[in-house]
């Protein structure tokens, strides 16, 4: 394995981590807002607050880790993506900021307000959508070089069906992931009405997720034939992912083994995510940038990987402790104990 591959694999792993934990968080915010606005009130609020409160900052760090790591391992990306992404990423930052801060304001400052709850829910949907533009752009065709500087063609970007299918996928997948996880969590908490409601959401969002994911592969056929061909080479990965998807839906439908259902879902997304990543290889930005010509020097790469291993040694036990205390602790999940400051 070359240093380049180790670097990109580490980053892709953390991005995957972000996709899962952030989806749960963002989706929960949306369902909560939806229920409060349709006056079903607080069926979900409890479940959501119990799970999300202690972990929201951790979620954010996954994202920070990813973009800091990208610049560390692949400094040239700063030049290409930094110059072109000013507007979409700034919008994502602002949404993240609104969401993150109002979250804290509302949860700890007990600043309950319908308007904020609504903003909070909507911001969560559009953060992944605006971040996913990065993936769209990476497929090439939207950036051209003018006077040696990359320039993004917004018209081309916003009229491309690819952009919109990735946009829709980011939303459907988010709601699906979140609903499946929360079904499991609500069930653990012994909250039947919440479980039923979330189970319904999970089933509603399952099919649209699959359809849009398929749609993207279809779009790529004309947009980026090279990438499309590599996806077809990896058909078995995506096939396996589909089987896991069927498994999740089956268990949810049968009201059985919600934990396993969520496990299968993680597997499904992991396979699809890594399948996508591998088929994207070696490009970071079609056709300008590959992981090889943008890679940092060897001394820095080795230093970063060493730091990563040391950091992981610190991180994994701490994460385990966090999960044990909050996610896997029966008393906490059920709300029997409240030790909030």
């Amino acid at each position, binding site marked *: 394995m070359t240093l380049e591959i180790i670097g990109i694999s580490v980053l892709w792993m953390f991005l995957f981590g972000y996709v899962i934990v952030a989806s749960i968080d963002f989706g929960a915010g949306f369902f909560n807002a939806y229920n409060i606005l349709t006056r079903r009130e607080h069926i979900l609020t409890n479940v959501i607050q119990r799970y999300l409160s*202690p972990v929201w900052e951790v979620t954010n760090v996954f994202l920070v880790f990813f973009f800091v790591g990208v610049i560390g391992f692949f400094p040239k990306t700063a030049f290409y993506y930094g110059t*072109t992404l000013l507007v979409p990423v*700034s919008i994502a930052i602002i949404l993240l900021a609104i969401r993150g801060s*109002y979250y804290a304001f509302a949860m*700890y400052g007990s600043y309950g307000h319908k308007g904020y709850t609504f903003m909070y829910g909507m911001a969560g949907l559009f953060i992944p959508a605006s971040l996913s533009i990065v993936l769209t752009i990476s497929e090439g065709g939207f950036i051209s070089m003018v006077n040696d500087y990359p320039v993004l063609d917004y018209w081309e970007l916003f009229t491309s069906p690819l952009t919109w299918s990735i946009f829709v996928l980011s939303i459907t997948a988010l709601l699906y992931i979140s609903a499946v996880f929360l079904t499991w969590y609500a069930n653990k908490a012994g909250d039947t009405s919440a479980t039923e409601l979330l189970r319904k959401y999970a089933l509603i969002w399952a099919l649209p997720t699959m359809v849009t994911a398929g749609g993207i592969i279809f779009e790529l056929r004309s947009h980026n034939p090279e990438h499309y061909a590599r996806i077809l080479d990896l058909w078995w990965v995506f096939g396996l992912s589909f089987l896991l998807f069927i498994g999740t839906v089956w268990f949810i439908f049968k009201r059985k083994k919600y934990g396993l259902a969520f496990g299968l879902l993680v597997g499904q997304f992991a396979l699809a995510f890594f399948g996508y990543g591998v088929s994207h290889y070696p490009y970071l930005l079609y056709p300008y940038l590959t992981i090889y010509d943008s890679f940092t020097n060897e001394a820095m790469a080795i230093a970063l990987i060493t*730091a990563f291993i040391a950091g992981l040694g610190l991180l994994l036990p*701490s994460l385990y402790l966090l999960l044990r205390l909050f996610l896997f602790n029966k008393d906490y999940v059920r709300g029997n104990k409240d030790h909030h400051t």
Partner: protein
Amino acid sequence: MDNEQAVFYSRVLTELTLSFHIIYATIGVGIPLMIMIAQWVGIKKNDEHYILLARRWARGFVITVAVGVVTGTAIGLQLALLWPNFMELAGNVIALPLFMETFAFFFEAIFLGIYLYTWDRFDNQKKHLLLLIPVAVGASFSAVFITIVNAFMNAPQGFDLVDGELININPLLAMFNPAMPTKVAHVVSTAYMTSAFVLASIAAFRLLKGSNHVYHKKALFLTMKVGLVFAIATAIIGDFSGKYLAEYQPEKLAAAEWHFETEENAPLIMYGVLEDGEVKYAIKIPYALSILAHANPFAEVKGLDQFPEDEVPPLYIHYLFDIMVTIGMWLAFLSALFVFATWRKWSFIQTKWFRWLLVAGGPLAIIAIEAGWWFAEVGRQPWVLRGIMRTEDAATTSGQVDIMLALFAGLYLILGVGSVVVLRRMFKRNPVEQEIEDRRKEKGGDIH
């Protein structure tokens, strides 16, 4: 938008984001330490007041952390969005501390989550206190790592630039650059100092507003003691920072001191104004600049005559330096006076006017932080990487920076106002007296 404008707006946006982030970040670095001290004292003395102090600080801390985290995420991304050329180079040489910083964040975030949700969960209170250590360590190390990056911008080393190619890169050498020891120490110690004075402000304000509860008196005395210790540390390290500047960035020191001609026995110029290149109304302290720069009253100090004109930083940094140093000296004096007077039981410290001075301490410390950073950053101009890359060559070529500036300004306004409103409500709704009463009922015992 032409490129000059893109550079201009990029600068303004960077200045704005950093100046806003630094308020919350400084508090974020210092407050965990203060909570730790209070909780430790509380456990040691078996005094419920200190425990409650820790608990209430922790609650407020959550709000400032939230704003710190979101604005930090903003600046992290903005560095790449606004200064892509700089980040490309920086990524090659100084990415290591940036990367390590994310682990510090992780560590802090995880344990903060655990700490906040485990009050009274353990029978042994010390166990709960242990959970706070990683929070404080993580927060302080965030500051250490990011300040290392900033130190590198002031004294870049650990690579060679040959025909525009970077070679011989040594990440560790880049991290341990000459600016690093003083910068890191000064930033961390000022963060502790500022947090102490901010909390002291709050306690003094409560005492002024009619609550004469011992809870606030204990809080005030504790925070002023900590403030004194770190104010002294800050002044000492600040002196070392001056010596660092004289050695490695003499143009910054010379500009800050309006030291135009190289000379021996150099006097220190405090205050004053500059009119047509003449210094007026200033206080000149003989030999003091030579002492600050070289610890020797007769030493020679380089003046601005030694530098090409287009490499001299803006001269207004003199005012920033004065503001910072004056506030530093004042706060050291004020806290020393308070601690001494408390010990001697002098009663003037209970008077209204004196308490107002204490209230002013927190905001003043924050002004000193801002002035210090502006001094350090503007004093580095025209370089973004001293001697290697000019600021105007580092900026983005994007044409939409001005719109983004307006958007972010609006965001910071909302966040700033929001955090103040929420913090006020949070403590108004649940006053100390009420909470002490509640705790007494709960525990049934000797809480006053």
